[in-house]
């Protein structure tokens, strides 16, 4: 066996007795042993496996905790976002409500180019979100609509439903009073599940459940838009009711028949002129005290 093979076997700790003797007799035996002995001093640091395992496990556990530490605030943010989104969704799908008080008028734009003018003491509601599918408003009171072209437009009132095919019309719904006047286009009125179609100038009027025929309307818009109320052969009580709404007053009638028909008009901006306008034709006298007005027949 040659020298190289012996050294190689020695390196592999694989020498048998005989070979070991041969190895000992090699001239570089002493040198190899010295080298080997001195090499032991370069041994790696002692590695305490169980201690290091503990370190690793605790490091893993603390990492896990930090992973839950970011999870918690994330959940908080998510919760806030959820609430915000919910609130946003709720408010945007909520009906838009507009109402006017006594002696107040307003004009609003609907989600498309349509517009509505509200007379005093009127409530209007519509849904912005559903507007694309269904143009529908709820109305209590009196309003003038200018409807943009498009799909059908509905005005729901407690008395009946007004379906719009055209563009301009007035709806007035008060206690026991329901009137629709068409100014332009075509309007359908459903009352007691019967639909009546109104052409421009036509009007539909129900007082105390009775249909009342009216003359052709020849104005292009309702008079209240010009700050005046006009009545043609209407019961005096409807005139008084409108007067109360426009001036926010209470009117008492003495010796006056509230059912008698009245034709005339009053302005919305001057109470004295208006009072004269509604008392002179009867004839009657009026007296004012605070918010109460007393009309006395002569």
């Amino acid at each position, binding site marked *: 066996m040659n020298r*190289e093979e012996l*050294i*190689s076997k020695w*390196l*592999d*700790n*694989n020498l048998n007795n005989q070979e070991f003797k041969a190895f000992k007799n090699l001239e*570089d035996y002493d*040198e190899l042993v*010295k*080298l*080997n*002995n*001195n*090499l*032991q*001093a*370069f*041994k*790696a*640091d002692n*590695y305490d*496996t*169980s201690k*290091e*395992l503990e*370190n*690793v*496990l605790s*490091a*893993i556990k603390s*990492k896990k905790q930090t992973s839950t530490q970011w999870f918690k605030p994330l959940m908080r943010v998510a919760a806030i976002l959820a609430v915000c989104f919910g609130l946003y969704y709720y408010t945007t799908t909520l009906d838009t409500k507009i109402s006017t008080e006594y002696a107040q008028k307003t004009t609003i734009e609907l989600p498309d180019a349509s517009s509505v003018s509200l007379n005093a003491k009127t409530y209007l509601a519509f849904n912005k979100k559903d507007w694309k599918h269904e143009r529908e408003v709820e109305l209590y009171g009196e309003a003038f609509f200018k409807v943009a072209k498009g799909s059908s437009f509905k005005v729901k009132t407690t008395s009946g439903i007004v379906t719009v095919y055209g563009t301009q019309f007035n709806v007035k719904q008060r206690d026991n009073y329901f009137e629709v006047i068409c100014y332009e286009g075509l309007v359908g009125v459903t009352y007691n599940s019967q639909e009546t179609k109104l052409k421009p100038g036509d009007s539909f009027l129900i007082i105390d459940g009775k249909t009342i025929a009216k003359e052709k309307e020849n104005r292009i818009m309702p008079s209240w838009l010009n700050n005046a109320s006009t009545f043609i052969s209407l019961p005096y009580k409807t005139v008084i009711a409108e007067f109360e709404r426009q001036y926010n007053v209470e009117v008492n009638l003495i010796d006056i028949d509230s059912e008698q028909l009245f034709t005339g008009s009053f302005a919305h901006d001057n109470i004295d002129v208006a009072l004269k306008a509604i008392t002179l034709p009867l004839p009657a006298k009026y007296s004012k005290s605070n918010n109460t007005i007393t009309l006395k027949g002569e």
Partner: protein
Amino acid sequence: MGKQLHENICEEHLFSSIFNKHAKDLHNFLYYKFGNLLNPKDKVQEAFIKLWENCAKISPEKAKSFVFTTANNLMLNEVAHQKVVLKHQQTKPKMSTNENPEFLMQESEYNDKLQKALSNLTEAQREAFMMNRVEGKRFKEIAETLGISTKAVEKRIYGALAKLRKDIKEL
């Protein structure tokens, strides 16, 4: 191939047994290859933490090569190919009784030479040689640890020995 007992190593006792089996070998491998400056203990810890984080994807058979590769890469990321200097332990083996000053000086000189010669070995030579000489591992075991053939291990170790002896004589 026998049927696998466990598909992954996400259980702590399984993880611990793998650690006990390979951590020391890994540490020594890193130490002899890269020296002490880059803190092999930390790299072992990091590699095993990475093993745990990926435990669902790694079968027990793959765990060893995973930690070795990971730790080696962690080292390589840091090492700027600086010279590796193995630390000389102060606890000298007490071989001789005649510790006169001259002998001590000779010893110290010899150790300095040895240290330099070790630094001059290639990484591949040094890791195999030190595992063999200092840890007392057989060629076959080293071959398994490093994932190379026994013949290659023998060549590396023999080559390392020859180089060391040459360097020591010359220095």
